[in-house]
């Protein structure tokens, strides 16, 4: 219920639309009631064989309501669909705005793709929030009120009697079936979760299951889970399917109850007999508004559950608070890490401990070390994705705590191992880095990144996640983007790991060329492959979150420490020796 109220708070901007749609829904059902009432009035009146003109009121009524019902229904459907789309769009904007400060730090604990897919599904499922959860009770209340006044004009007794049945249909039945089914829905959700993970294991682990001869066991488990799910679904359905017949039964009971109270009043002449038919038919028609109600409770539960999951994510605190007072971005792009320590949440050992590092503006630095040494943590901290648990980071002598995170990121061009391409055109993907770039700039940067073939197809769609491009092409797109951004600091985080040797070499050359152009850019390369190392001004060797060595390539080789041993391991048999044999 708390979740529902919060959801309603988010979509309250659309409350006029919702009220309009619900009123139209009321008017539609109201016209249906009006049509039947005036029809009954004509027939009852005519049975007394009055002069023709006495029927004219009824005839005007059927004509009006007959047309109104169809037209109103049409308008109502349009308005409520439009409202639903508006609500969905509002929810997306709200969610994006809440999620934006959390990315990427707070989302890492979830398996990213999976989580995001679940979020989108949850928001999609809120499609029903208006049309199935909010609208039906509103309409039903209005119809009930209408009948209250209609019947009240004959006798308050009738109003009270009918209200009891309406209340039972609106509250009693949903509560009753909801109560019986309470545990079932949770159990089904539990089995579905297990079914989902077992199915994913089946599809993704199919080859392992085959090779380890476990396929039959696993499929058996899936059958069993599905059978259990279906059994519970059966139980749930048996009760859900009661809704419609039960509301029909309530309608007939209301008819009986009203006949019971009405007949004595007709026979003693308090009420004109003509109205017997009119009242009974109005009572019957009013139950149309109550048919969707039991379903509404079901949708209420799913919407609340979806809302709860969304709120759980949104309510996380961002990893990095925004600065209290902002300073402008410095012109001098030296980078200084001062006694930095950092531990990722939910891990025990620190990723970086008391790390100090000075990189001068225009310097070219490589950070190397075995996997898990903390190389990528340096990037994450520099970009302000995480807040160091201790120490300070400076860009040009200004602490990044006092710099706007967006400005920092605009001034750091980064290419990481994973490149995300949006499912739009090549052009759109490039423009991300520089929205006002002209075609010439785009083509230049593509050529520079070794993608001259793309210069003629700027408007080509890159596919979902850029899947129409090869891994190497995607990586080079990222490099083109980085070139276009033209930031004073460049970070390459395992940027060329997915490239084949020949491409890697040419790409590195062009980036180095770019960095050497005046004004020289600060370059930070993170890698575990020791290639072209002599080109760096400084090499920093990390191990377990600490700097163990730093210096130029030849100095480090002479030291005969970790760097030298890594180098010899990767180049333990130089191919030149092999080739000279031949």
């Amino acid at each position, binding site marked *: 219920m708390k979740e529902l109220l919060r959801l309603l708070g988010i979509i309250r901007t659309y409350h006029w639309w919702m009220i309009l749609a619900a009123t139209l829904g009321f008017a539609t059902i109201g016209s249906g009631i009006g049509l039947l009432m005036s*029809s*009954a009035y004509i027939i009852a009146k*005519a*049975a007394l*064989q009055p002069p023709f003109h006495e029927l004219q009121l009824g*005839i005007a009524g*059927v004509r009006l*309501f007959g*047309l109104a019902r*169809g037209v109103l229904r*049409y308008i109502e459907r349009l308005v409520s*669909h439009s409202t639903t*789309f508006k609500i*969905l*769009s509002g929810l997306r904007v709200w969610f*994006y705005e809440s999620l*934006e400060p959390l*990315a*990427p730090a707070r989302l890492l604990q979830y398996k990213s793709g999976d989580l995001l897919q679940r979020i989108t599904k949850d928001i999609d499922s809120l499609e029903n929030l208006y049309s199935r959860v909010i609208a039906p009770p509103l309409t039903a209340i209005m119809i009930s009120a209408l009948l209250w006044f209609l019947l009240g004009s004959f006798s308050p007794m009738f109003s009270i009697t009918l209200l009891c049945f309406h209340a039972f249909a609106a509250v009693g039945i949903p509560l009753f079936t909801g109560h019986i089914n309470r545990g079932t829905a949770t159990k089904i959700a539990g089995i579905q979760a297990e079914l*989902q993970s077992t199915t994913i294991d089946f*599809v993704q*682990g199919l080859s392992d299951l085959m*090779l380890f001869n476990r*396929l039959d066991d696993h*499929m058996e488990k*899936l*059958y069993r889970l599905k059978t259990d799910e*279906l059994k519970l679904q059966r139980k749930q*359905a*048996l009760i859900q399917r009661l809704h*419609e*017949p039960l509301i029909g*039964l309530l309608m007939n009971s209301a008819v*009986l109850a009203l006949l019971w109270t009405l*007949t*004595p009043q*007709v026979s003693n002449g308090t009420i004109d*007999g*003509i109205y*017997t038919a009119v009242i009974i*038919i109005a009572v019957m028609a009013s139950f149309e508004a109550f048919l969707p109600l039991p379903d509404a409770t079901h949708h209420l539960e799913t919407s609340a559950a979806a809302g709860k999951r969304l709120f759980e994510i949104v309510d996380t605190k961002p990893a990095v608070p925004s600065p209290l007072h902002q300073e402008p971005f410095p012109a001098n792009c030296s980078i200084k890490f001062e006694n930095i320590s950092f531990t990722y949440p939910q891990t025990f050992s620190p990723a970086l401990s008391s790390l100090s590092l000075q990189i001068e503006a225009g310097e070219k630095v490589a950070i190397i070390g*075995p996997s898990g040494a903390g190389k990528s943590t340096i990037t994450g901290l520099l970009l302000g*994705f995480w807040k160091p648990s201790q120490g300070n980071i400076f860009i040009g002598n200004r602490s990044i705590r006092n710099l706007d*995170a967006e400005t920092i*990121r*605009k001034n750091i061009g980064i290419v990481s191992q994973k490149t*995300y391409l949006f*499912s739009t055109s090549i052009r759109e993907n490039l423009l*991300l880095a520089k929205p006002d770039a002209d075609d010439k700039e785009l083509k230049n940067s593509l050529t520079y990144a070794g993608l001259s073939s793309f210069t003629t197809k700027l408007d080509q769609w890159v596919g979902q*996640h850029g899947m129409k491009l090869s891994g190497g092409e995607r990586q080079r797109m990222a490099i083109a*983007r980085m070139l276009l951004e033209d930031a004073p600091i460049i970070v390459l985080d395992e940027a060329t790991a997915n490239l*084949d*040797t020949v491409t890697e070499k040419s790409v590195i050359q062009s980036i180095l060329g770019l960095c050497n152009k005046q004004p020289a850019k600060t370059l930070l390369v993170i890698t*575990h492959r020791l290639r072209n190392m002599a080109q760096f001004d400084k090499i920093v060797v990390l191990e377990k979150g600490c700097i163990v060595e730093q210096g130029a390539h030849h100095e480090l080789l002479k030291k005969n420490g970790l760097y030298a041993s890594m180098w010899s391991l*990767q180049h333990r*048999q*130089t191919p030149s020796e*092999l080739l000279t*044999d*031949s």
Partner: protein
Amino acid sequence: MNLDRRLLLLVKQYPLPFIASVVLGALGGALLIGQAALLSSVISAVFLENVELVHIVGLLGLFGIVSICRTVINWASQSEANRGTLKIKKLLHQQLLHKISDLGPPYTESIGSGQLSTKLLKGVEALDPYFSQYIPQIALSILVPLFIVFAVFPADMLTALILLVTAPLIPVFMVLIGKAAQIATEKQWQTLSRMSGNFLDVLQGLTTLKLFGRSKERVRSISEISESFRHSTMKVLKVAFLSSLALELVSTISTAIIAVEIGLRLLTGSIAFKPAFFILLLTPDFYLPLRQLGTKFHAGMEGTSAAKDIFNVLEKKGFQKTSVATPSSLPAISKEPIIFEKVFFSYTGDSSYTLKNVSCRIAPDGVTAVTGPSGAGKTTFINILLRFIDPQKGNITLGTTDLQKIGRNEWQKMISWVPQHPYIFNTSLRENLLLANKDASEQELMQAIEYSCLGPFISSLPKGLDTPVGEQGAGISGGEAQRLSFARAFLKNAPILILDEPTSHTDPGLERQLLASMNQLVEGKTTILIAHRLSTVENADKILVFDKGSIIQSGTHSSLLQEEGFYKSALLVFEEDSTS
């Protein structure tokens, strides 16, 4: 009409619940007519004869009993439809699982696991409303109106004629509505899924947006895109809803006409009140089932589109031939070479072969390395070796035994496989390892962990071997997953070993340790190694170089260096690189 023939065939598999549902539904319709007759008698008596309550108690009681019966029967009808639907869902789920396992890993990898598991989970469920609501409703929307016409006919011929005249309009409208609703639902569905696809894209790229400092301005584009989708959809809906407006009008205007027409005849006394009211009560119910069919059309639509996806899988042809297994003739593997003779394979089934005329001999007790540029056919070659697919042409023999004579299961039992991206199951680490050999002792387990250099990683985990992995568990990196897969191979200890770029994720220090333990694993086994890196290839006993689906070079490291070709040129790049 959305009556997919393949879906109807499924109904034929379990006809009884559906027949019961329709019969019960029709009976419910008959009771509805009875109720109308009783009610019109009661009201006629109260209104025209001014009877006391006691005189109509009997009729009221009867009305109550019929109401209860109708409630039960309607419920039973729906519950029968549900029973049949669940049977069909169970059947489809089983068929899909079987098909997917027949199609094998090359298929699951080609289609994207997310999509396929969605089909298995959501696709089958999406068919529920089709069978439980749409199919029975079609039958009832024909039967119930017919019953009503029959009931009205003796009471008043003229009205029955009006109903019959408007009745032919109904199929016309059904077709119209069908078409329009189809367009509407399709458009709506498209819009919803495009909006949500676009949103997912933005969420997944959020980090990238942040890297460019452009994440905040995206808010505007999200609402703009939603708005433009909404506008275009509303345009379509405005037209599409017109046909249901027309159906609604046919129903309300007919009711109005009948009311007036009966009213006028009541004036002249050519009809009595009781039949007149009886007819009025039934008229809305004459059109109701059809209007309901309109609303259930959505269910029908979703069903057919889900069915399309499901049957796409079910009707796919696999790449596996049925093998004539004779388990007794299983040769001692480690003594026999695996021989490929003019093997061809094509995924499309036509002449665009992924593997062309591949002949080679994989010696027992040695390491055969497979290398070549990406897309050269290495993976297909391995898939054939693993018997996930069978070649269309050519022969593969183990010694002198045709591979097709060995059961697929038997063959796969003899292979250990270390893929490039091993899958880690959503259970504990221990169970992930025991998958390879469920009877392994604790000692064997520890040894496998040691060989695959997993010790430090496992001891860093809060619950050690019993730590759950997968979704919310400890994040397993690519390198760790590969080492786990290595450990599985140690545990399975099968005579044939297939390794796919076995150390591609690890760092140099670890690579040395792993290479050492790999040498131990390879000992005495027929080993096939896919590799790009020099360090893993150079020690192989034989190197097969693939390009464009064929083996273009083969030999040892030193013999390949003698000839000009891919191998030597790839090596030259490496050399230039590491001396710079």
